């Protein structure tokens, strides 16, 4: 139990002293999870929007495929991405294995279905007549889409929150395609695994605190963004 308190003290010291090693890991963590989330948002929200307003054969199948993807285990994604990126794999010439790019790719695959699935739900829950009304009032399709996105903001930002939460908390895929290389591809979650393996439970706990603080900070910002004036 002492570890919980020791960890808190260590975390405080690490942050106050500006320990360059831990700040580097924090930066890599934020960089990877935010770029992966951003990619997922840029693909996932339009995908959700398109699915909500288009009817075609196989729509049900595609929707359930996305919902299935929301539960995609990161280790499975990590393994499949590895098979592609290894030197012997089809993308081997790109030399991407054990790089941040590889981690971003894997995490984006994990996060995309979550963002797309929740976006679809968020947009479906607003009145389906609204789009037709906007169009009949003379809005261009792009304007109508933009207004719908704004209308569904609450649910869409929830999608971003869920996606980012998955990306920053994920271990399996980062470990496998990133290699958990110190100073290069080590992120907060894999750093915790390493410290546990070394038997430094206090340091592991300290990093856990830092991970929680960082995640909380981002989530507070996203929540404020979600609720706008209601909270400020």
């Amino acid at each position, binding site marked *: 139990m002492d570890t919980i308190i020791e960890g808190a003290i260590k975390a405080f010291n690490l942050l106050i002293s500006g320990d360059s090693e831990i*700040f580097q890991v*924090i*930066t890599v963590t934020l960089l990877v999870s935010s770029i992966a989330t951003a990619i997922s948002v840029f693909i996932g929200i339009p995908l959700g929007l398109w699915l909500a307003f288009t009817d075609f054969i196989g729509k049900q199948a595609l929707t359930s495929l996305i919902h299935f993807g929301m539960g995609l285990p990161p280790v499975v994604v990590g393994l499949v991405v590895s098979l592609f990126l290894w*030197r*012997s794999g089809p993308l081997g010439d790109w030399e991407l294995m054990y*790089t941040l790019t590889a981690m971003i790719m894997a995490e984006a695959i994990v996060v995309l279905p979550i963002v797309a699935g929740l976006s679809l739900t968020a947009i479906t829950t607003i009145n389906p007549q609204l789009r037709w009304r906007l169009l009949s009032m003379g809005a261009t399709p792009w304007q109508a889409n933009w207004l719908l996105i704004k209308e569904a903001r609450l649910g869409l930002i929830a999608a971003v929150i869920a996606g980012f939460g998955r990306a920053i908390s994920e271990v399996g895929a980062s470990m496998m395609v990133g290699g958990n290389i110190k100073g290069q591809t080590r992120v907060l979650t894999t750093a915790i695994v390493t410290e546990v393996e070394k*038997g430094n*439970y206090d340091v592991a706990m300290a990093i856990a605190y830092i991970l929680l603080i960082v995640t909380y900070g981002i989530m507070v910002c996203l929540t*404020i963004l979600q609720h706008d004036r209601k909270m400020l």
Partner: protein
Amino acid sequence: MIVHHKVRTWSLLVSLLSILAIGSSNQLIAQAPALGQSPVHKNLIVAMTTSIEDSGLLDELVPALEKKTGYKLKKVSVGTGQALALAKKGEVDALFVNSPRAEREVLASGAVINRHLVMHNDFVIVGPSGDQAKIHGIKNAVTAFSLIAKKKALFISRDDDSGTNKLEKDLWKRANIQPNGDWYVRTGAGMGQTLQIANQKRGYTLVDRATYIFQGKNISLPILVQGDKQLLNLYHVIEVNPKKFPKVNSAGAKAFIDFVLSPEGQKLIASHGKKQFGKPLFYVDGGKTEKDYGL
């Protein structure tokens, strides 16, 4: 007003990120090459056994090596079994591993070349202080294993095909025992975690001395068997054969091997752990071969 708040929130987010970025801008710049497609032969990938990574040895070796050779070392910490599997596919450039028999097999297959002994320590058998199998002080590891099996005393196995696990399986084979049953627990985890499970469950396990030393503060299992020649733990560096896998960074692998065997590299290894634990974790063997140990 809405716009105003939005701007405020966004700027909060952005400034939060930029504080972090500035706080470690140097490291971020160092990261940059990893993001793009860095020059193919600048990166050097070495697969190594977990006990080397966990011991912190590489934290001292890598910066010195990168400074001297100019390569950017990517060390991937996996069990020896996985490291050898990666080498057989040509996914890595060099190996730093501890399972001589399995290494010789891969060497014979032609996937790897240029194998050199770097250092050694030894394995020990640890167990609960009650020692119900009564193995304390026994000089022969195989006898100790037989006693554990006979008593069906709890034994925790890594079962991950690592060097440690391969030796453990060899010892069972030499004792003519097929370990099976409730008393034989397979973790599939690294050494540190397996030792911790043995500690929590009060079981016996085979552990390399380096891990036992640096995990010491969390472990209450005493060393029961040590000093048997069969428990010697030899670490080799190996180059992946560039003739077989053209994508391998052969010059980098050679530079890595040369550095580890150089007086500077050997000195770093020999002194590692002395400050933190009061004793070295590894003993250097530069220039020797496994024949010197009767293997």
